């Protein structure tokens, strides 16, 4: 039965209660959700930890002296790993936020409000943008801090810098999409764990090293561990990877909008284009090192002179890869200080910058000592411990004639080498400790150098320590006067002590195996 009353049929219309500003509503909702996201404990804690760690790493790097000489093609990807925890927290918490209405039964109400579900989905994605922006600002600040250092060399990549913020955005979109697909709070944590397990299984199945194409499917591929390489030898498909991340982010965003009911042609087209971009990114980043790159790395490792330019300073040739030519003045300062202490007893010197690029960016293979007389190796890192290490290399060549001759020095010449290397340092005792593997100034120990380490006995260590406490002018005179004997492998430690004016060892070291002491 239908009952109708017949009142006067006068109908009225009211103006809309709210202005027709759906996009403004999306932005307002995104701001609201961003604030809520920040108040989630995991996001807040990990963001705070990330900011703290970023500041700490800047301070720590300043303290070890390496930060004054950054290599920008490494500095651009150094900040990629730290924001991953922020990304993880964002993924889980934005997923939680999207599921909020369903979990608490407000969907029935919100479903009839003017802001449609797909716009709410978009707002959730946009709520992640401030966090990606914070990461972008931190990454940019870290890189700019490095790039503005007078000692900076090399070239950074915008694509590498984009990786960290893109990772946070991608994580947010994954969280939103998961929530729209699976209405369970367990889906996102299980997804994260499942992804991790999958990567471990694949890694184990492929002998601990994932195939190149698989490695680069990961959002962040830091490739650290080796010494910095010239930009041309990096072989990192950074631009393709950034395209892959950006494409994947937009693809998943499109999927989330489609799932949320926005099944329109523009969204479908954008999603399809983004999918194509993702595929192009994957295709571009997957091939691995090209033959040309492998050859170039071999040339740089075996015949660096083919890639280098040389400059003459005070009779010493300094040969560097193009991006490092500005650093020859720093090297020359060390060489001149050591030469001055040695009194000019040397052949014509050549400082050659070298890298071992054949094992890629993660290989940390040691450089083989050069056989040529007067040839001194310098690496691609500078500052901090690298300075006294280089000084050890210079002093070794001055004393032994060549790196090959100097390799494995553990006879009495080690005392002269170490005094020459350390006496010119601003804080010799501190440099002595830092240049040794054990960070000590007593007992036997290995001393780091650009090529092979130097072995010191306990008595040699004591003698160097005593020499460093004596006036530099006195020791310099003694070194210059006794240069011939001090640089002879036949000279005993007792004789060296006598020549340099320090207490002789109570017992002469084993001449057959002096390193045993």
């Amino acid at each position, binding site marked *: 039965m*239908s*009952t109708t*009353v017949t*009142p*006067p049929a006068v109908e009225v*219309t*009211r103006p809309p209660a709210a202005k027709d500003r759906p996009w403004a509503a999306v932005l307002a909702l995104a701001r609201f959700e961003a604030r809520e996201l920040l108040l989630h404990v995991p996001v807040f804690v990990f963001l705070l930890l990330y900011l703290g760690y970023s500041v700490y790493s800047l301070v720590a790097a300043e303290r070890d002296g390496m930060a004054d000489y950054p290599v920008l093609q490494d500095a651009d990807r150094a900040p990629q790993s730290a924001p991953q925890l922020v990304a993880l927290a964002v993924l889980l918490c934005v997923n939680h936020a999207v599921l909020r209405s369903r979990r*608490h039964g407000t*969907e029935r109400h919100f479903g009839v409000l*003017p802001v449609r579900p797909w716009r709410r989905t978009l707002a959730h994605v946009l709520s992640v943008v401030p966090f990606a922006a914070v990461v972008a600002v931190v990454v940019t600040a870290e890189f700019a801090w490095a790039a503005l250092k007078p000692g900076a060399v090399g070239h950074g990549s915008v694509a590498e810098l984009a990786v960290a913020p893109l990772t946070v955005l991608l994580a947010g979109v994954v969280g939103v999409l998961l929530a729209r697909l699976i209405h369970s709070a367990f889906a996102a944590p299980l997804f994260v764990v499942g992804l991790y397990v999958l990567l471990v299984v694949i890694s184990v199945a492929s002998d601990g090293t994932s195939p190149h194409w698989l490695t680069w499917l990961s959002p962040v591929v830091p490739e650290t561990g080796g010494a910095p390489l010239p930009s041309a030898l990096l072989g990192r498909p950074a631009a393709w990877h950034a395209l892959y991340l950006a494409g994947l982010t937009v693809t998943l965003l499109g999927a989330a909008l489609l799932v949320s009911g926005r099944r329109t042609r523009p969204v479908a087209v954008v999603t399809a284009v983004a999918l194509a971009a993702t595929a192009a990114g994957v295709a571009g980043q997957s091939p691995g090192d090209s033959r040309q790159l492998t050859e170039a790395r071999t040339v740089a490792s075996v015949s660096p002179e083919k890639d280098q330019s040389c400059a003459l300073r005070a009779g010493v040739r300094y040969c560097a890869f193009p991006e490092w030519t500005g650093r020859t003045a720093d090297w020359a300062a060390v060489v001149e200080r050591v030469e001055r202490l040695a009194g000019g007893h040397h052949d014509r010197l050549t400082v050659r910058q070298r890298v071992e690029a054949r094992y890629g960016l993660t290989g940390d293979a040691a450089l083989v000592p050069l056989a040529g007389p007067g040839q001194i190796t310098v690496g691609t890192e500078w500052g901090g411990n690298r300075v006294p290490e280089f000084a050890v290399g210079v002093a070794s060549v001055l004393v032994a004639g060549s790196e090959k001759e100097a390799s494995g020095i553990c006879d009495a010449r080690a005392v002269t080498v170490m005094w020459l290397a350390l006496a010119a340092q601003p804080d010799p005792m501190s440099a002595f400790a830092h240049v040794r593997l054990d960070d000590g100034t007593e007992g036997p120990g290995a001393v780091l150098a650009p090529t092979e380490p130097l072995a010191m006995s306990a008595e040699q260590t004591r003698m160097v320590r005593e020499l460093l406490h004596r006036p530099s002018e006195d020791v310099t005179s003694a070194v210059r006067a006794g240069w011939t004997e001090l640089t002879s492998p036949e000279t005993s430690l007792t004789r060296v002590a006598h020549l340099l004016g320090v207490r002789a060892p109570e017992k002469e070291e084993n001449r057959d195996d002096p390193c045993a002491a």
Partner: protein
Amino acid sequence: MTVTVSASGLTLRYGGTRALDDVSLRLGAGVTGLLGPNGAGKTTLLRVLATAVPADQGSFTVLGHDPGSAAGRQDLRRTLGYLPQNPGFHPDFSAFEFVDYVAILKELTDRTARHREVRRVLDAVDLSEVRGRRMKRLSGGMRQRVALAAALVGDPGFLVLDEPTVGLDPEQRVRFRELIAQAGEGRTVLLSTHQTEDVAMLCHRVVVLAGGQVRFEGTPAELTARAAGRVWSSAERAPGARAGWRTGTGTFRNVGDPPEGADLLEPTLEDGYLLTLGDGEREAVA
């Protein structure tokens, strides 16, 4: 009456059941009560009018907006305040945040104006003092008032309230009545309820729904008048009465068709409602 909401022939089936069966009605400004037993289709009708579900047949307009088109539906939603049955809430939001969130979903985008509006509606439901308190720390009655504030935010022209007084204690119900009466000033309010008292106290019009059909549409007085001469008192429960119960005085109050010479009583809205339902059932059987 100036018609603000007009529905014609609304029909909705859930499987083989007709939840709404050719429902037509017209509403004007003020509070209209929607009475009916459980399963009468009240919530379904409200959900259709709130555009939560589309009707299989029929049409309606709200303040001139026709939800038949996407644009019309969107315009309608901008004029709508909806308080669903058992409204959910976000426990970690404060009362202010929850209403603010709804305000954003109603496209109130200017932050300052929106916050002013949120404060206004929270003040209207007498929750200013606890607006910063988390929802999980509010009593059931307070939460219900927050939900009403959320429905009121943005000053909607059409307010749909689905059993808002369920679960409230008598004091809270009285307070809620006050709020709904205020809300009905100058806007159209459709109030679904089981409580005939609420309708008697609040509504200027009433619609009785049963079996998905409109059984009555008129004023509360007209519904009450349906029971005129059909309520009587007796020492025992009258055998022919539709309903009868012992009152506090010890006599029985009977509703139905009275015998000759019965001691007739003044009818109430509830009597009219009971008779309307009973008449409907009889007509259906016939």
